């Protein structure tokens, strides 16, 4: 019985890796071999080279890196300040404000595409990287997560720092932020994975290479009518996924724990 279960677990694991294994096969072999399996066929990097030059992948990479960095930086600052306010300050309307923040957990920017497109148009920033990032910068989930974390930090530490003459923001920077480091790491990993992979809103709000992130570039690339060359498409697909995939393989434990801690976006 145990053996059977082990076999089933492994079989499922192989099944789960199959699409990726196929991608590696097709991407590292010449196009004629993409759909035929010859175990000893010679390997080639040609497909990556072609994909890299056919579509402006370097530009898309740069855009995605700028995008995720911009979003994460803004999220960290905004959510830290708001989380601190909710965790440690008494102010009028706090409960109501918090409830209004939580609304975004359900009504995410992902579904408000029609109106947000109109807003970006009115702001005159359509087809720009900030337009992709803006709706996600104030993250209800980040605020919620940091508020919960800050609340667990003993008030005595806070008061001790204040006795020594630290201001509100200094206390935040010197006491709260360092103690919440694991939460920041977890949130950061989840945020970067999410925005690296995000697609619907970026494709709506951008229409030129100059602002399009990788996911959109990949879609444009693989839906062109030049006849589907599987090898080149899989090479492009792997390039798009590679940074996250490599990071995941290197920091598996960190990833898994982060998704446990902050998985629900």
């Amino acid at each position, binding site marked *: 019985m145990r053996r059977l*279960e*082990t076999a*089933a*677990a*492994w079989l*499922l*694991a192989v099944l*789960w*890796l199959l*699409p*990726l294994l*196929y991608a590696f096969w097709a991407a590292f072999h010449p196009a004629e071999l993409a*759909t035929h399996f010859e175990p000893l066929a010679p390997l080639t990097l040609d497909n990556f080279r072609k994909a890299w030059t056919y579509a402006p992948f370097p530009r898309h990479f740069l855009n995605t890196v700028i995008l995720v960095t911009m979003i994460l930086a803004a999220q960290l600052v*905004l959510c830290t*300040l*708001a989380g*601190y*306010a*909710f965790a440690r300050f008494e*102010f009028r309307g*706090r409960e109501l*404000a918090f409830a*209004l*923040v939580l*609304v*975004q957990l*359900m*009504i995410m920017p992902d*579904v*408000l*595409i*029609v*109106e947000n*497109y*109109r*807003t970006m148009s009115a702001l005159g920033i359509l087809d720009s990287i900030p337009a992709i990032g803006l*709706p996600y910068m*104030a993250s*209800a989930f980040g605020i919620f997560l940091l508020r919960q974390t800050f609340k667990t930090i003993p008030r005595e530490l806070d008061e001790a720092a204040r006795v020594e003459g630290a201001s509100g923001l200094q206390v935040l920077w010197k006491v709260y932020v360092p103690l919440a480091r694991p939460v920041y790491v977890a949130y950061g990993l989840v945020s970067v*994975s999410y925005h690296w*992979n995000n*697609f*619907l809103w970026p*494709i*709506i709000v951008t229409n030129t290479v100059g602002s399009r992130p990788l*996911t959109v570039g*990949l*879609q444009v690339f*693989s839906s062109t009518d030049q006849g589907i060359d599987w090898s080149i*498409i899989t090479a492009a*697909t792997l390039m*798009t*996924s590679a940074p*996250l*995939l490599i990071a995941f*393989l290197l920091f*598996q434990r960190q990833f*898994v724990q982060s*998704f446990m801690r902050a*998985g629900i976006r």
Partner: protein
Amino acid sequence: MKHVYGWLLLTPAAILLIGFTHYPAAATLLDSFFSTGTAVRPSRFVGLENYAALAADPIFWQVLGNNFWFALGTIPTAIALAMVMALWVNDKLPARALVRMAYFTPTVLPMIAVANLWLYFYTPQIGLLDKVGALLFGAPSHNWLGDPDLVLPATMVMVVWKEAGFFMIFYLAALQSLPPELEEAAKIEGASRWYFFRRVTFPLLMPTTLFVLVNATINSFKLVDHLFILTKGGPDNASSLLLYYVYQVAFSFFDTAYASTLTVVLLVMLALLAIVQFLLIERRVHYR
């Protein structure tokens, strides 16, 4: 003074939240009562006309039905698989780390990339599915994504593959927090593993299951990326989902008022889910 300080800290986030969540949600509702403005005919108040059009729109009912089947087809399967995966990976399994990595990997891949890979599997004749089918069973070639009866199930299989590993994480966390004494006690009593799972583990995982269930349902309304690569919603909207239809109406047919009306339906669904989740969270407190 403290009042001011609290609000000051909150202001930057509040401006963005109001600007890109609360305002657009309210504007969507408002827009659904107006007609789409054109160069010759400006937008005007039409009352419930958009909703009447919605009720009479067969495509709307079709994509709503698709969403329902999509949720029903993917969520229970993904959750059951996730639970089994977590139990396996939590156990003394040979090469456990490798197996866990295999299960979790689809989670870090972009949906667009995943759809590209699965497109190959589903391609008639040269695709992996047809090849394996022909080789093992001599099965005829299927046009998996071109057949209205097969296309939705085909996308569902892919989504289960993508999501199960993600849900597994939450079960894994829950399993690791269960006291090991429970299993020891069951062993002493001579309970079978199946009995132990059915009477102890499964009930103790219930709060996690409810939590995952609600979040999976919310997700099922947001997952549309794969349609851009695999089917564009076709054939004949057989694989389209509500959010994808919103996208088409707004950005292909340029009927923003009707797109807003469709979005309102989406928002109502999400709000209902929010209420369910809130009630569940209230209950979760008692479990702790």
